[in-house]
């Protein structure tokens, strides 16, 4: 039963982080929420008895994609600041 | 010994990787050799299929449902033949084009190799998940090609195309997930009897998702928004590849799924709706083509219109008499083939015009008839196919489709097709009228290598000649 309760919490957190990633006004926050979403997905895969996917999601899904996105936000900010000066 | 199915996929994969290693110059040579070999393999498969034997291949030696099966039947054989037959002249054309105008050559050959491998794999696969992977391969290769001259315009077009294709394959993948959840397999041959026996709502939903996703990828009206900038803005050899072949790949897949899997669950109203979208595409694409000031954009909108004809297949073949369905399939296949050849020729000719005059404004084409007579001839011949005049392949295609419409008692599609033919004539004659005008004072023409004009002309000639040899093509298609 505690398994089910955990799953429901996990699903709620997943949906919340996805919604925030899509709607957060600040781009940086949105990307951070997206990485949180990726890590929660890894947890969901673990709950679905899929450790291989959990590993891949954490490393590639949240890790690499997150790094790519964060780097791009940084790039975007640098660009904005540069053009203002 | 040599299994043509497997080699049609492995050969382009290999030369694509080697072309990446060797760089553009030597890569181009190896690519041409590879495509020539592929054409031989495709001809081999077509002859075998016409002789009445379809070929199968179980990847890894595992049969479905555990493994992935490859299958070549009449429809696959024709599409394979079309892809290699268009690719070979285009490869010759591309080498000449990029020698003259090197922007965008850097990764052209490996991208084109992966694109061909992906399309061949798509035409041969009999496994819906494997088809998803091939769809993504086709999409990413095409996007890479669109972006290849990396100007703001082409990058924006590539990105728009990328998002469209990703949404399309996402919907397709969700459909696959629902099918797997319902039946426990992704093999087409295993799924077909199961779907016929029992179709819960999930199957219907999966069918809708897959067909809608593929329509987005085929740029059927109103999902065509991404096509004109992508096809009109890319370097000409790329435009030719995309317009002639890439959209046909996703169209082929809709037909394959419809005939082999989804027809029993498809409501007739859905087929009528698809036909109406096809009609809207014909009208809208042609009208927009007529209004384009640039030659390549005109040709790109013409593709939007010609896609419409392909989709008339669905109302004609769904829950109609067998002979009507038969002519509908034959008509759609002929349309795919003749449009593929003619459109590759047209974009090729447009590329010649751009390299020679430095622009592709339709209104400033005056004088090209005396300077580039072969290219004008190419435009005219491929125009004949698009309009559907005899004896072209386009004529046979439209004739078969009209036959299917009449024998299934759906005369209203005939009106759509005839109106489409007239509109096509309008934009083809717009090009020719300007081409035959006197040369403007300011216009300058550059001399071009011969290997630029001839491949495009050969393609245009083939689109006409295919009408004379239609019976051979239909024999390949008709085989079980």
């Amino acid at each position: 039963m505690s398994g089910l309760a955990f799953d429901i919490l996990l699903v709620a957190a997943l949906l919340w982080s996805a919604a925030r990633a899509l709607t957060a006004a600040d781009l940086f926050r949105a990307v951070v929420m997206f990485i949180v979403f990726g890590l929660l997905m890894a947890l969901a895969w673990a709950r679905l008895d899929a450790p291989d996917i959990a590993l891949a999601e954490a490393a590639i899904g949240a890790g690499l994609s997150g790094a790519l996105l964060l780097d791009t936000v940084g790039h975007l900010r640098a660009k904005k600041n540069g053009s203002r000066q | 010994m040599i299994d043509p199915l497997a080699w049609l996929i492995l050969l382009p994969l290999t030369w694509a990787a080697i072309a990446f290693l060797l760089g553009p110059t030597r890569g181009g040579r190896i690519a041409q050799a590879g495509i020539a070999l592929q054409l031989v393999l495709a001809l081999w498969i077509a002859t075998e299929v016409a002789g009445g034997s379809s070929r199968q291949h179980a990847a890894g030696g595992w049969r479905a449902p555990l493994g992935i099966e490859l299958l070549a039947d009449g429809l696959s054989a024709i599409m394979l033949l079309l892809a290699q037959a268009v690719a070979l002249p285009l490869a010759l054309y591309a080498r000449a084009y990029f020698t003259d105008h090197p922007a965008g050559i850097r990764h052209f050959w490996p991208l084109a190799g992966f694109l061909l491998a992906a399309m061949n794999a798509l035409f041969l696969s009999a496994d819906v998940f494997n088809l998803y992977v091939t769809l993504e391969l086709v999409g990413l290769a095409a996007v890479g090609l669109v972006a290849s001259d990396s100007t703001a315009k082409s990058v924006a077009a590539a990105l728009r195309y990328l998002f469209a294709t990703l949404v399309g394959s996402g919907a397709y993948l969700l459909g696959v997930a629902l099918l797997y959840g319902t039946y426990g397999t992704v093999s087409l041959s295993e799924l077909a009897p199961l779907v016929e026996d029992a179709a819960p709502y999930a199957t219907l939903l999966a069918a809708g998702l897959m067909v809608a996703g593929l329509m987005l990828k085929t740029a059927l009206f109103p999902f065509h928004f991404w096509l004109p900038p992508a096809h009109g803005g890319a370097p000409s050899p790329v435009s030719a590849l995309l317009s002639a072949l890439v959209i046909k790949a996703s169209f082929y897949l809709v037909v394959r799924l419809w005939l082999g899997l989804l027809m029993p669950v498809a409501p007739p109203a859905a087929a009528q709706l698809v036909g109406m979208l096809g009609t809207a595409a014909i009208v809208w694409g042609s009208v927009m083509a007529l209004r384009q000031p640039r030659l390549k954009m005109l040709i790109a909108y013409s593709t939007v219109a010609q896609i419409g004809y392909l989709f008339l297949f669905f109302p004609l073949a769904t829950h109609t008499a067998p002979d009507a369905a038969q002519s509908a399939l034959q008509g759609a296949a002929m349309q795919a083939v003749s449009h593929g050849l003619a459109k590759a020729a047209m974009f090729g000719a447009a590329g010649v015009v751009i390299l020679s005059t430095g622009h592709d404004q339709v209104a400033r084409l005056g004088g090209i008839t005396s300077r580039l007579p072969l290219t004008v001839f190419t435009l005219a011949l491929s125009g004949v196919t698009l309009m559907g005049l005899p004896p072209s392949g386009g004529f046979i295609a439209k004739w078969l489709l009209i036959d299917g419409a009449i024998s299934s008692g759906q005369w209203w599609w005939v009106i759509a097709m005839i109106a489409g033919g007239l509109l096509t004539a309008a934009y083809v004659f717009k090009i020719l009228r300007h081409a035959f005008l006197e040369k403007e004072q300011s216009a300058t023409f550059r001399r071009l290598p011969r290997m630029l004009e001839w491949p495009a002309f050969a393609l245009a000639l083939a689109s006409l000649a295919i009408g004379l040899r239609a019976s051979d093509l239909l024999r390949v298609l008709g085989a079980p």
Partner: protein
Amino acid sequence: MLFALTGIVLFAGGIAGMILQSHLLRKIMAFNIFGSGAFLVLVGLGQRDGQIDPVPQAMVLTGIVVSVAATALALALARRLLNLTGEMRFPREGPDD
């Protein structure tokens, strides 16, 4: 089954985000979210009786790699567009020169 239903919601939300958001980075995140939704349906529905099924798991592994490839390509194109136009959204359709 719970996860499969979540997958459907994520898919629909991701598609909505893809259509409604104009910023390219958000579109790319939306793509990843609806992709994850489809993956959850694939595994969640395949294992709805609680038995482990390695086939959809392997498919999702393939799918994740494909998504990352597409994400990286989309970001590269978006950054190139940013460098060329200074914006991270699609330029308005202008008249063709």
